[in-house]
């Protein structure tokens, strides 16, 4: 079990008063709350801050923590001093304090549980296992076609493989509840539930906008000017797109019903035109551009007042 430096976690001095500790916690909570934060390690950081706050804001807990002495370093292997008289995973010197709800974001660390007890560690009575939440990351193709995804659950008394059937048209945030597949219960109590949430990974070509699928379609100036028949990829395979003459960059062309499947109305695909200019890297090509200027003089900025 590793020693935790709660002062360091909150970034406060060992002499910090309660107001300073509260302020430090609030600052970290806002920054790292997993429901709001986009930081990659948000959940871990938030839990750490919460645990540190739980100890340092409570005068009794803080006193007990401080009594361990100041020679400990964060991450150092921690063994409780002799004479703590642990029973059933609970320390006997501290028995008061809050009851921690299992609906919190996971539990506190082993270090915390050793020092202050806590329900997750308390043996001897029956308690339902913790509910757990996990993300199932799928590709856009998997979301479009549907299919099955295998998941390994290892942190259980028994290793299990979950086969999750994903419907065509699955969307980010969609939830699945597997009763009894969460954390194990204690004392014969049932296990918690497992909640799975779908997340569609970003795709190099396509971008989802709700049920619609967007594709940036690079075209040549000639195709834009003269019109063309272009093979365009969709999630269901390539289709022919008719590009009208005199098309402009930024225009979006709709391929009706080529978006994500949906029980109400299927999404569309949009091709957003992006004109790519051939480089004027030879004399001949330069002359051709110059000829265009002569033949088609126009100023795309004419409505600017500059």
């Amino acid at each position, binding site marked *: 079990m590793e020693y935790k430096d709660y002062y360091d976690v909150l970034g406060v001095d060992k002499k910090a008063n309660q107001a300073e500790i509260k302020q430090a916690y609030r600052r970290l909570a806002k920054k790292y709350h997993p429901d709001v934060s986009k930081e990659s390690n948000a959940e871990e950081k938030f839990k750490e801050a919460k645990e540190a706050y739980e100890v340092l804001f409570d005068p009794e807990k803080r006193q007990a923590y401080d009594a361990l002495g100041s020679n400990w370093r964060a991450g150092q292997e921690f063994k409780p001093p002799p004479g703590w008289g642990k029973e059933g995973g609970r320390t006997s010197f501290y028995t008061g304090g809050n009851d921690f709800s299992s609906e919190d974001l996971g539990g506190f660390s082993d270090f915390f549980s050793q020092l202050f007890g806590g329900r997750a560690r308390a043996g001897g009575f029956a308690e339902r296992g913790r509910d757990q939440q996990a993300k199932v990351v799928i590709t856009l193709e998997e979301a479009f076609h549907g299919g099955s995804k295998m998941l390994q659950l290892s942190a259980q008394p028994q290793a*299990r493989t979950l086969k999750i059937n994903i419907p065509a048209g699955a969307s980010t*945030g969609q*939830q*699945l509840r*597997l009763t009894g597949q969460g954390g194990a219960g204690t004392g014969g109590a049932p296990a918690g539930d497992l909640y799975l949430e779908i997340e569609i990974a970003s795709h190099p070509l396509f971008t989802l906008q709700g049920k619609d699928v*967007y594709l*940036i379609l690079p075209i040549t100036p000639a195709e834009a000017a003269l019109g063309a028949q272009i093979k365009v990829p969709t999630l269901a395979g390539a289709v022919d797109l008719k590009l009208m003459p005199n098309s402009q960059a930024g225009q979006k062309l709709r391929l009706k019903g080529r978006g994500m499947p949906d029980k109400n109305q299927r999404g569309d695909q949009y091709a957003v035109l992006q004109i790519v200019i051939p480089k004027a890297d030879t004399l001949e090509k330069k002359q051709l551009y110059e000829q265009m200027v002569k033949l088609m003089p126009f100023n795309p900025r004419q409505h600017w007042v500059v």
Partner: protein
Amino acid sequence: MAKKREFDTKELMIISHYTRETFLSLDQVCHICDISPEFIDELIDQNIIHPHENVSAQFMFSLSQLRRIKTAKRLQKDLEINLAGVALILELLEEMAKLREKASLLDKYFL
């Protein structure tokens, strides 16, 4: 004996479908989230959730609503904000998710 059990432990295969729409009753939701029915009433008052009602006018909660309830409870508790604030945060988060979608499209457009 303990060793033998390890060998007995075969991999279990559990098959589950996202297609099945699950609805939970008020009792179930209160039990899962460890909250009171009054808390649910407050969430409805604040427009945070909109549960369906079945034929006998009892609330039915989808899993995505269950998730919102859990999030609301966490935000209220961890960030010490009232439910009006929670409602605003949830609205802004949805708005941000849409803007992120748009931004990722623009990222692809810019050369």
